[in-house]
């Protein structure tokens, strides 16, 4: 990145040791401690633990549900990406918003919503006497996780369609005599292969890492995954054997993440390097040519209606169910205005909400504020990609993001639990380790928006290094850096997996409080808490939507 060249040179000299030390503290030491505990009792203990039928079962469950989720979410996300970026459906802007909406809702809230919409005594049960069989168990877990992960796949594939796949490439195929289906098969999908592969990897890691959804839908049905098993192990952490088992499971997760992410990342990086010669082109342009006549427009309307129906059933109804539950006096009563009350909100606010809200906001703000400079550090170091050290640092940070949250939480607990157990600080350390790579990506993304010669022009006009950054770089980067800050803030606010393993009596976050209320069998209050959490997230995310619109 030309724009960061000068910064990079200064960073190389002074900042690289700092970055290295921080990486060792935040990621290196915890992982080393984790491996020490997991392997410390020798290979026989590891083998015995892993072959224990319940542990092996949990690992197997995690693997096959995550594989299914990855397949479902990626195919769904790809189909949606083709629909929004290429098909020219009516109401495409609304469809995009509908796809992104689930991202605002923490997956465990979605799972809770599904139980309130399609579970026993849920909306469809009360209204029609039908409920979704198998909601509690692997089917429900796979469905809800796939719905939660599909937007991630959509973001990746739609991004590739909009920026990498010049519409002329598909037009050329049509003009060469290929029909829409042949064009999709011979041009669009082959060129999307890298994006589809990274969508598969991201959704798989997302699903393996998921804790809230299997905790809500799997645990009551006796269906354990690696993460829920670890949670139970740590709940009995007084038992040293359980603690070791948690460590071994966490190490297994680390190994899994590395096995999946490593090769895919290497392959994709190679592809990216090979692709630099190619031209990027018209953004989001629709490729017309499909029957535009009356038949075509009817087909488009039907497709748009189908997507709308899916949105209502998969996303909107569960969210409404949570809202209705929060408004209804008791579970089992019909959610009609006669039974409405605000008492649940009163109880939620009264009981635990205030402290947890303060905790969550403080943690999220601290994480976002620290992660962004940390990310800038790496973005600037790694921007000078010729230096091998920069790449090593960036890979290490990416590792933190790829590591399942539960494994990272156990690792941080092992490394620093002695001093920091039950404090906000230990949760913050875990957040920083986890979100560092996210911050790096945000900063690197905004640096890419900086016109290549903007800083050089400032230098050539007589500005010194820092003056150029202050007068030209900072004003240009400010909006995207602010957006990056909000993104990290939202991720932290969402976070449940690590928080649920690390919180103490006085450091429960909002997500943890919602989950605990739900698990204590208090649906109305947990629904009220969930509504407040989602509302808070939505309010904070609102400026992002405006910024995104202003940018396009």
């Amino acid at each position, binding site marked *: 990145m030309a724009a960061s060249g000068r910064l990079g040179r200064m960073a190389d000299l002074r900042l690289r040791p700092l970055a290295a030390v921080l990486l060792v503290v935040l990621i290196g030491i915890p992982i080393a401690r984790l491996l020490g505990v997991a392997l410390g009792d020798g290979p026989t203990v590891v083998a015995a633990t892993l072959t224990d039928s319940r542990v092996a079962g949990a690992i197997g469950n995690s693997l096959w549900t995550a594989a299914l989720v990855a397949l479902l979410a990626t195919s769904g996300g790809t189909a949606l990406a083709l629909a929004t970026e290429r098909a020219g459906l009516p109401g495409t802007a609304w469809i995009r918003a509908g796809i992104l909406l689930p991202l605002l809702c923490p997956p465990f809230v979605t799972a809770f919503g599904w139980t309130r919409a399609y579970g026993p005594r849920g909306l469809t049960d009360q209204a029609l006497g039908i409920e979704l069989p198998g909601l509690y168990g692997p089917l429900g877990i796979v469905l809800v996780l796939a719905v939660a992960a599909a937007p991630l796949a959509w973001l990746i594939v739609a991004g590739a369609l909009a920026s990498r796949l*010049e519409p*002329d*490439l598909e*037009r*050329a*195929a*049509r*003009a*060469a*005599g*290929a*029909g*829409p289906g*042949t064009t999709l098969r*011979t*041009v669009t999908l*082959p*060129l999307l292969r890298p994006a589809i592969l990274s969508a598969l990897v991201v959704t798989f890691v997302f699903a393996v890492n998921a804790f809230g959804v299997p905790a809500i839908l799997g645990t009551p049905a006796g269906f354990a995954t690696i993460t829920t098993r670890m949670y139970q192990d740590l709940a009995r952490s007084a038992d040293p054997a359980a603690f070791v088992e948690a460590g071994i499971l966490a190490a297994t997760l680390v190994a899994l993440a590395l096995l999946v992410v490593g090769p895919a990342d290497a392959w994709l990086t190679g592809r990216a390097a*090979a*692709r630099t*010669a*190619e*031209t990027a*082109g018209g953004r989001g342009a629709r*490729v*017309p*040519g*499909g*029957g*535009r*006549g*009356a038949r*075509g427009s009817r087909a488009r309307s039907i497709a748009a209606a189908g997507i709308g129906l899916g949105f209502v059933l998969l996303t909107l109804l569960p969210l409404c169910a949570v809202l209705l539950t929060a408004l209804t006096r008791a579970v089992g009563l019909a959610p009609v205005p006669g039974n409405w009350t605000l008492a649940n909100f009163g109880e939620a606010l009264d009981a635990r909400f205030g402290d947890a809200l303060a905790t969550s906001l403080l943690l999220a703000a601290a994480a976002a504020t620290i992660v962004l400079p940390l990310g800038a550090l790496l973005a600037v170091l790694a921007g000078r990609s010729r230096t091998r050290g920069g790449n090593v640092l960036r890979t290490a940070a990416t590792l933190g993001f790829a590591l399942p949250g539960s494994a990272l939480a156990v690792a941080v607990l092992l490394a620093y639990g002695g001093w920091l157990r039950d404090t906000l600080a230990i949760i913050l350390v875990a957040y920083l380790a986890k979100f560092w790579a996210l911050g790096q990506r945000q900063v690197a993304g905004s640096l890419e928006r900086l016109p290549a010669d903007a800083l050089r022009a400032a230098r050539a006009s007589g500005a010194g290094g820092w003056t150029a950054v202050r007068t030209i770089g900072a004003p240009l980067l400010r909006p995207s850096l602010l957006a990056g800050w909000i993104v990290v803030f939202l991720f932290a606010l969402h976070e449940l997996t690590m928080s649920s393993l690390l919180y103490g009596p006085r450091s429960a976050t909002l997500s943890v409080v919602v989950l605990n209320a739900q698990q204590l069998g208090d649906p109305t209050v947990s629904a009220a808490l969930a509504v407040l959490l989602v509302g808070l997230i939505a309010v904070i995310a609102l400026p992002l939507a405006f910024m995104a619109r202003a940018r396009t």
Partner: protein
Amino acid sequence: MDAADVDDRLLPAAELRGLAVGYGERLVIDGLDLTVARGEMVVLLGPSGSSKTTILAAVAGFVPVRGGEIRIAGRTVATPSRHDPPERRDVAVVFQGAALWPHLSAADTVAYPIRRRGTGPRDADREARRILGRLGIEDLAGRRPAELSGGEQQRVGLGRALARGAALHLLDEPTAHLDGPLRDRLLDEIAATRRESGAAGLYATHDTGEALAIADRVALVRAGRIVQAGSPTEVYEAPIDTWAARLTGPASEIEAVLVGFGSGSAGFGGELAELDVGGVRIRSRIDGAALGPGPARLLIRPDWAALGGSLPGRVGAVRFRGSHTDVDLDTPAGAVTIRRPGPPSVGVGDTPGWSLARGRILPT
């Protein structure tokens, strides 16, 4: 189809009648008529933003039409209620940025349209290599776009269009990303292959030299309308207005008074006339729309005037261009650019005088 009793080969390659195309609420083309005869190369010449690319896109089937009709080889392919997709139109497209598929080799790219006709992979590959051979790039058959230079990429794109075997080639500024000699070589290649294949061409460009060099007929496009159409010589020598004059080549405009016509004919569309230019009487070959005595605005191409003569002028700028030299003169009637062969013979500030061999009266 709808003209089954007429021999298809006698029908125009393309007919656009009352074409209207729009994006959103806005019509960018409204009521455009254009016919491309069999084997004819029509160049759409216009500045960027004049919607010439949109005309090609409508003919190719990339955008729907809002009004009018498009026929290709006698077959109706687009009306407001009908939209044949590109693969069912008898067209081949050469794209501005080549639009090669990153995952296919040159041979596979050229074989692609052949395969879509149902030809087996082996035969298609043989045919593709034959086409690459004709373009002199058979040695690049195994390379992917990332391993090709800009000129090579565009040549592969041309091969892909040839392989389509279409009646009409649509070329959207195919030389835009090339420079200098590469550009000329590709132009020669396009002209030669089109002659061989007998296909008609519709070629969009903003480059005047390119348009005049390759066209059988040039259509000047302005804001989605065809302002003038004619042979390259016609549009160069007889532009209909100032805008058309400046689009089709270097042009100077001066104020003059047409005094009267002499006797005798004066070649191409012009007559020998007596002019008052800045107070000096001269005789010169004049043509134009409004040939009547009185004040007139006179268009002068750089090759229509010469240094030395009875008209006064002072050299404002001299640009040596290698094979010739352009001299800007400030004259009482307005600025005039004169082109003469060879290196500069005058310097800035000189007052060599000048003469006018011919001119064209522009409408006021």
